[in-house]
């Protein structure tokens, strides 16, 4: 009997080889399934961190589900939180489609809130003005203020090739300081850091306002801003996927060189998309001010503009998918307010985006595990 000798060089190697093979086509369910897995993984990782700082992740998550979807009242609160998120999510999705990195939705949100408040507080319209004029004027002012806040980075990008990531971000800090000046110095009420409460004519109608007619609406906070958000989602979807302009925007995003050869005006589109994106974020500010806060004050956003970036990415830049994703993040922000430590919702949002961008590897590639003997 002969024994076959192993070769002299015996090198240890991993028993499993991981090989990436680019997918030629992606099944329709894949993106959805992988994203769901990424969110689940992010929640697990967030739970691990929560455990590390001495919390009880299971109880915290169960509490969050109950506090955001437990009864009709909190579901309405969740939808109220989701309303501005839909609009900033759309703002980001639109700009990102053109690979225009508008990180400034937060600042444009503040600008929109300022614009809408200016109508009431300057006052541009007398407080007795009926809602039917007051509300559209505020919507217009919020949209225009947000669009102007987006115009500058867009113009600088188009004209001088200034990096829009940095410029939009810097505009965020400027917007906050601008609003603070007006809250502290101009529109302050009795030295407090907030303006006076808007007259009722400047409030977006809430479900609770119709409690007399329909008893079930009593105490429900959802307001007309939701309708603005839903309409905006349909319009942005139509513009992006059914109009010639939307085709241009997507073409620039996918292949700027081809767009240029095709004669698409990149300079004009950069400015316009940035303004429309800013306007949408401005609408979110208007809706929050007029539908929830009813006055201008400092703490009007728990980072809505940044959440919008994550929402847009999770929705795969699809305006209609932004709606359900916004509801999920609205729930996270609503229920997270009472979770200690206070940074938890922000942390989970960040981890979701990390897992999401990492998971794209599995959408683009088939991952093969190849088993082999330890020694060659």
């Amino acid at each position, binding site marked *: 009997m002969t024994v076959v000798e192993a070769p002299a060089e015996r090198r240890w190697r991993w028993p499993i080889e991981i090989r990436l093979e680019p997918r030629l086509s992606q099944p329709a369910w894949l993106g959805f399934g992988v994203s769901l897995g990424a969110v689940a993984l992010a929640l697990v990782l967030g739970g691990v*961190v*929560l455990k590390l*700082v001495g919390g009880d992740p299971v109880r915290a998550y169960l509490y969050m589900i109950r506090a955001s979807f437990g009864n009709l009242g909190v579901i309405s609160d969740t939808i109220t939180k989701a309303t501005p998120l839909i609009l900033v999510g759309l703002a980001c999705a639109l700009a990102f489609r053109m690979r225009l*990195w508008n*990180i400034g939705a937060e600042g444009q949100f503040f600008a929109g809130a300022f614009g809408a408040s200016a109508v009431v507080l300057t006052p541009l319209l007398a407080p007795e003005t009926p809602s039917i004029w007051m509300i559209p004027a505020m919507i217009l002012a919020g949209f225009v203020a947000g669009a102007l806040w987006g115009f*500058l980075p867009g113009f*600088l990008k188009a004209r*001088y*090739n*200034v*990096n829009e*990531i*940095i*410029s939009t*971000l*810097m*505009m965020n*800090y*400027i917007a906050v*300081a*601008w609003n*603070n*000046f007006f809250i*502290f*110095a101009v529109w302050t009420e009795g030295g407090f850091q907030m303006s006076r409460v808007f007259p009722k004519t400047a409030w977006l109608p809430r479900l609770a306002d119709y409690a007399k007619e329909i008893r079930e609406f009593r105490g429900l906070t959802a307001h007309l801003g939701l309708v603005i958000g839903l309409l905006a989602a349909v319009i942005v979807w139509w513009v992006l996927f059914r109009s010639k302009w939307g085709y241009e925007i997507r073409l620039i995003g996918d292949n700027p060189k081809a767009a240029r050869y095709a004669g698409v005006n990149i300079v004009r589109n950069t400015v316009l998309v940035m303004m429309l994106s800013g306007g949408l974020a401005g609408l979110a500010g208007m809706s929050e001010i007029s539908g929830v806060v009813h006055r201008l004050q400092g703490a009007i956003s728990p980072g809505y503009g*940044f959440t919008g*970036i*994550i929402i847009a*990415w999770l929705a795969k830049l699809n305006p209609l998918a932004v709606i359900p994703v916004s509801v999920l993040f609205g729930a996270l922000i609503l229920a997270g307010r009472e979770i*200690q*430590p*206070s*940074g*938890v*919702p*922000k*942390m*989970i*949002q*960040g*981890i979701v*985006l*990390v897992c*999401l*961008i*990492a998971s*794209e*590897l599995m959408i683009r590639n088939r991952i093969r595990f190849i088993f082999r003997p330890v020694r060659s």
Partner: protein
Amino acid sequence: MDPIIILQAGVATGTVLLFATVGEILAERSGVLNLGVEGMMLIGAMSAINIAVRTGNPWLGLLVAMVASGLLSQIHAVIAIQFRADQVVSGLALNFAAVGLSLVFGEGLSKAGAVALLPTYTLPVLYQIPVIGPIFFTKQSVMVYIGYLLIPLVWVYIHRTRPGMHLRAIGEFPGAADALGINVARLRHLYVFLGGMLAGVAGATISLAVAPGWFSELTTSGQGWIAIGLVIFAQWDPLRAAFGSYAFGALRRLILDIQGPTVLLGLRNPFYYNPYWGFFLQMIPYAFTIAVLVLGSREAVRKRLGAPAALGLPYARGERGL
């Protein structure tokens, strides 16, 4: 409002930006755009003061800040280099996650009370040089002096050494570097790690030296983003980065100090009598960053300078592209 004192404090404030900017220059020179600087600085600031409070040793805090931010940067490195994902989104993701983590782990730190800070020194002989001495060499934190050493070191490394040439090669033309046997992925991991470490140092410099304490997101208040802007202004050159950082530091100090005196240049100080104008002063560093970017990009066009050619592009051997 003694200009010498403002400049002296400005150099200290600018040192924070210096570390962050030089770190990002190293990462971007290797071809990886890391937008997570702000978050990594916050992690650095939080872990530095956290450890300093627990152990009473600020040096240990500095070390942990470096390691924590460096390890965190590898999340972005793996996603950007190995997974070849979009570097802008990956960097933003790292930033959000890092900000959130620093808030969670920093809970309660703002009430920690007094903490041992990194020491300050006055350099013998050098402090006697008129004007320069009091600004640069008198009662400065040890981090400021480390900053002085870092500038020429990194410049010489990038421009005059063989590893520095490899660094430039993997950022400009990774395909060619790969053909010469340089391990592109490994080096990119290394430089992203160095960049993360320096962002951690920048954070620790805030919380343990320049503006001691933990004020959650206000600790950095956007300085990480300003640093990324400065990299573009500096055209990826550490000397220009140093100039920009110290100028920004002095500007930030001036804005803080200008509201103090009742008389300014022989006139009634409007910023003292109208304290709310301070909000417009607060905008200046951010507006200035945008202005600097405009100037920087116009100059870049004129001199035909630009970013490392492969910046933001993943490298895969055998695929078309750089």
